[in-house]
């Protein structure tokens, strides 16, 4: 491998020997193509005409009135597929095409990354397999159907709690046996090097646009940028552009599930300890001996016990602050945005909104907070109905 893939001591590539040659090949291809003019032009064109970039920055005035300061939404929910995930799948899918790979595999939690991969599989005519835990298949069935319609095969993963961690385990195992022709399209800014770097690269358009849009619309940078954190891709995608702007507070919101004290959550950075899982050294939810905990969250996309290595470094350095929002607060946020703005947020993204609600009347009225609205909530309607039945 050419680079260490470290963020401080975090990251790296802790994988079985058999995967090293393929990660090396991927690293080489990424650094060869990402600055290549033709690659960049093709990706730029697809991002615009296929995915719908740039996404708008929207001043959510009624939501703002409710919390007592200005809230702007970066509308990644309006992209094709309904989430920021398409930024990454277009980039990696194109990389796969340039590398001459003919088959795609991916893991998925909420089904958003799976769907975004299935779309790209259809677009480039590649055979696509999506690994998805059985629990997630049940709670995100709409996305499962959509993936099937795009021609992807959804492989049900039984292990563990049938969530994202288990899907990654099986995708890695499958990849091990099919390294020659298969491209593993990893869904978040975590996992082994070079994925955290690749995924960040393809997601940092979110922050670049946000910065320009803030300067243009508000005439200044925001005071605060807030994003939910599962593996960390949408958060890093929007944070990256503001890392040097020390007056811009960066806040990552993790899944507090049923509450931190009971252990039924997925708040890795808030409550975890450094360990090694899925190829990277990072904060990890685990017991004293290092067995990885099963996590819980109302949102399948955040239901993951590890987190991207760069977030670990941002936490330690204090550049970003990480907090947790519990399921009930998240459902409140989902309902509030829907009622005040007519926008259904993904339950993942609703974590970021829940943080803003917790700051209601605590911040000066002129505060400008930008939320990365990473996805839309159509996929979550039945979960909300179940957890919040109409009286």
């Amino acid at each position, binding site marked *: *491998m050419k680079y260490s893939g470290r963020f401080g001591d975090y990251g*790296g*590539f*802790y*994988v*079985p*020997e*058999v995967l*090293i*040659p*393929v990660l090396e090949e991927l690293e080489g291809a990424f650094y060869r193509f990402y600055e290549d003019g033709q690659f960049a032009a093709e990706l730029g064109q697809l991002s615009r005409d296929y995915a719908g970039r740039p996404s708008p920055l929207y001043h959510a005035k009624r939501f703002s009135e409710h919390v007592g300061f200005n809230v702007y939404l970066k509308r990644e929910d309006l992209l094709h597929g309904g989430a920021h995930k398409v930024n990454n799948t277009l980039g990696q899918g194109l990389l796969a095409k340039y590398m001459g790979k003919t088959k795609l595999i991916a893991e998925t939690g909420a089904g958003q990354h799976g769907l975004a991969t299935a779309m790209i599989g259809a677009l480039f005519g590649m055979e696509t397999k999506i690994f998805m835990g059985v629990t997630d298949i049940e709670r995100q069935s709409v996305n499962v159907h959509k993936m099937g319609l795009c021609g992807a095969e959804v492989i049900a993963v039984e*292990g*563990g709690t049938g969530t994202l*961690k288990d899907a990654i*385990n099986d995708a*890695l*195992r499958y990849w*091990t*046996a*099919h*390294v*020659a022709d298969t491209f593993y399209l990893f869904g978040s800014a975590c996992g082994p090097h070079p994925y955290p770097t690749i995924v960040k690269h393809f997601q940092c358009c979110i922050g670049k646009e946000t910065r320009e849009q803030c300067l243009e619309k508000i005439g200044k940078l925001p005071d605060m940028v807030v994003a939910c954190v599962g593996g960390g891709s949408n958060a890093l995608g929007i944070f990256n552009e503001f890392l040097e702007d020390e007056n811009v507070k960066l806040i990552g919101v993790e899944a507090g599930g049923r509450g931190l004290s009971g252990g039924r959550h997925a708040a890795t950075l808030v409550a975890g300890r450094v*360990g*090694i*899982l*899925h*190829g990277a050294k990072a904060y*990890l939810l*685990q017991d*004293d*001996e*290092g*067995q*990885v905990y099963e996590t819980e969250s109302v949102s399948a996309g955040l239901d993951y016990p590890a987190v991207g290595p760069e977030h670990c470094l941002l936490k330690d350095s204090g550049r970003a602050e990480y907090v947790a929002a519990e399921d009930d607060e998240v459902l409140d946020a989902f309902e509030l945005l829907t009622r005040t703005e007519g926008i259904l947020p993904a339950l993942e993204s609703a974590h970021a909104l829940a943080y803003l609600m917790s700051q209601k009347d605590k911040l000066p009225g002129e505060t400008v907070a930008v939320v990365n609205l990473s996805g839309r909530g159509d996929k979550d309607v039945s979960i909300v109905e179940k957890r919040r039945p109409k009286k």
Partner: protein
Amino acid sequence: MKTYRQVFSELDRAALIPFFVIGDPDADTSLAVVKTAIDAGADVLELGIPFSDPIADGPTIQKADIRALASGMTVKKALEFVRAVKDYKDVPIGLLMYYNLVYQYGTERFFSDFHRAGVNSVLIADLSIDDADEIIAPATSAGLDTVFMVTPNTNTDRMKVIASKTTGFIYAVSLLGVTGSRERLSDPVEELISKLKKMTSVPVCVGFGISKAEHAATIAAAGADGVIIGSRIVKIIEENLHDKENCLAEISAFLSGVKSAMENRGKTGTH
């Protein structure tokens, strides 16, 4: 304590190396299984400490990990388990496990505690030669041998680096994939063995997918110094969860069969 060097130099055939997950399906049965394997002629033992997320393992060993964890196996109890095995017979033991368990225990302390209990090497499935510096110094100062994996897609330069950092044996993975029984041996395995044998004097043991006595015999004949058999015998445990006696009898019969097949076609045999 018996060393790998002693075992490999004493044998005029390939070493028989069964793999088990410690505590599968429970600590007592697991110990009985390991003793049976020793009695059936195991020259070296490869033992796994169960982990929640074994990404290099196929379904059979995943299930063994789950059974072992469900029955309460822990890293601390694995240490006692190793001591109990060594009390029974001084057979070299290589651990095969995942990095997080070592890391959480504290790498130096893990190596010295397990070496004192009787372990000869610790192979970490998710730590490649690129990060070997994190473990070689503490392993060596604890008195452990080093074991690293080579796979059919490892390039020649890399193989040389791996061989140069290995003191115990090279664990040659016979195929591209995870652990699990296979009907046939993979095509590249014999080529892999001969390439390694030409390159290095470090012993070469072959594992992953070896499921039949003939497989073992073929691999031994190709020049391997040891044959590692995991999923095939772990499967016997899975199939006999309610019949311990039959489980032990089948494991014993299977390993004896492998051993005599290898004896009939010794290292220097048909190659």
